[in-house]
């Protein structure tokens, strides 16, 4: 966690756009960082109003309806043909999806 990010935690005022964009694997130009910093700070200040509400004892809504135990049977169902699946890939070999070299 960057220092700026930690400070924001205390201040609750600004969001460290560069840090968060990196978590989301988004490159941003300096211009974008500046614009978003201003816009998102304003938006975060707005959404901060929910922190003023008393939510003591209130359960979070994880799901809209109280549905439980939705399962499917363990049966094999045909999926996509390899050609179909590979066809959509921007880069592929005959049978694999290609990415730049991964260094473990």
């Amino acid at each position, binding site marked *: *966690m960057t220092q700026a990010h930690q400070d924001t935690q205390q201040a609750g005022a600004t969001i460290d756009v560069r840090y968060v964009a*990196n*978590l989301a*694997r988004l490159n941003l130009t300096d211009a974008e960082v500046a614009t978003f910093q201003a816009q998102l700070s304003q938006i975060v200040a707005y959404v901060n109003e929910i922190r003023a509400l008393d939510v003591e004892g209130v359960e979070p809504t*994880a*799901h809209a309806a109280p*549905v*439980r*135990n*939705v*399962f*499917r*049977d*363990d*049966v*094999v*169902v*045909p*999926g*996509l043909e*390899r050609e179909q*699946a*590979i066809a959509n890939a921007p880069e592929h*070999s005959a*049978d*694999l*999806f*290609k*990415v*730049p*070299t*991964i*260094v*473990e």
Partner: protein
Amino acid sequence: MNGSGMGKYLTTIGLEVHVQLKTQSKMFCGCSTDFGAPPNTHVCPVCLGYPGALPVMNRDAIRLTVISGLMLGCRINPYSKFDRKNYFYPDMPKNYQITQYDLPLCLGGGVEIEVGGRAKTIGITRIHLEEDVAKNLHYATWSGVDFNRAGVPLMEIVSEPDLESPEEASAYLLALRQILTYAGVSDCNLEEGNMRCDANCSLRLPGRTALGTKVEIKNINTVKGVHGALAYEEIRQARALDAGQTIIQETRRWDADQENTSSMRTKEDAHDYRYFPEPDLMPVALPAEQVAAWKAALPELPKARRERFVAQYGLPEYDAQVLAAERAVADYFEAALRVIPRAPKAVSNWVMTDVLRVLSERTIDIGRFPIAAEALAELIDLAETKVINSNTARDVFALMLDGGGRAGDIVKARGLAQVSDTAAIEKVVDQAIAENAKSAEDYRNGKAVALKFLVGQVMRLSKGKANPQMATEMLVARLGKG
């Protein structure tokens, strides 16, 4: 006692074991989980993370996880749910993994191990269910991704940090594997990758209660590797501490060839997984009756099977231990025994000596053993009923191993039935005595070993087919008269 040999530090180890469940289809879609298929042939919009795709839970994966929990003495959570673990990597079709964060299916439990004659229970913290990631393959200038494995149901078993040495760690892994194969939930084959292990290791000085800095070790793919990686880490950390260095909290990669661990480049600069409840899946609240029904129908635990082999079949403890070590071998033994129930010790001997020997020689598991249990039973029966003698039986065994076929057919085709006809044996016995007068004389003079030689001659002259017990009796009778 730690294995660093220095005895100065106390070792604390925890293991996270990932087990692929033996379902037909994947965790959240109907694609096949069959191992070894050509790359990207078991895929669909769901496990490829296509726009608009949605996960649907595999009922059997839930059942197998609960059964594993019950076999390991866990409490089954009456309310359990799934969460998204967010991070980016090429083996992640959605760049989030559906897993369980704060409400896993099973909590608590333990595994009994025995190291150095000492029994100990290793605690289990939790068992949860998640989806496996795809497979990355590495080439010179690029990497490739095979999504066949993406979405296979994966059970994660987290141990308490109760392990205190590499020996205990490998014992724990073996005990866990034994129980899970007994449960029938997984093949637990580390080579096929359906059981994977990450270890955490820290050292501290005796007297300190606070644990030292934890180092995570990944890429452990064999049971030997568990021991090797942890033994290496113990020494590495001990040396560092002795030199006054601080241990860095990091993830290290075990290299089985180099036999060392090295620092890994982290997948995420910040390990912020941003867990939140999976909105596409509904919570799991299993009715108590369902869990009770599964509990009542649990497969036998290894220990119970060992004890039953002794009690039910009158086998010695040693035999029971060897036969029950692997469920598949125990199953094989009992399948053979069903054909000839009156001969448990004979079947036990054959399985322990001959069958296990071949498995070891050929480094295969019993699943690939060429002789079916029923076929072996037939062979043993022929020997027990003295249709063939023990040497012939071994010959037939070898023939069946390499050429297949039924014992009875082979014996008939090659005329291998032992000769138990008194007159025929008498002829050969007389011939052996006649041709080996010196040995006969030696025997009469008290040299017991000469008898063995003469029996050997009888066998040779009869092309191995004489009933050796009868031959021995006749020789003794003949020579005694002399």
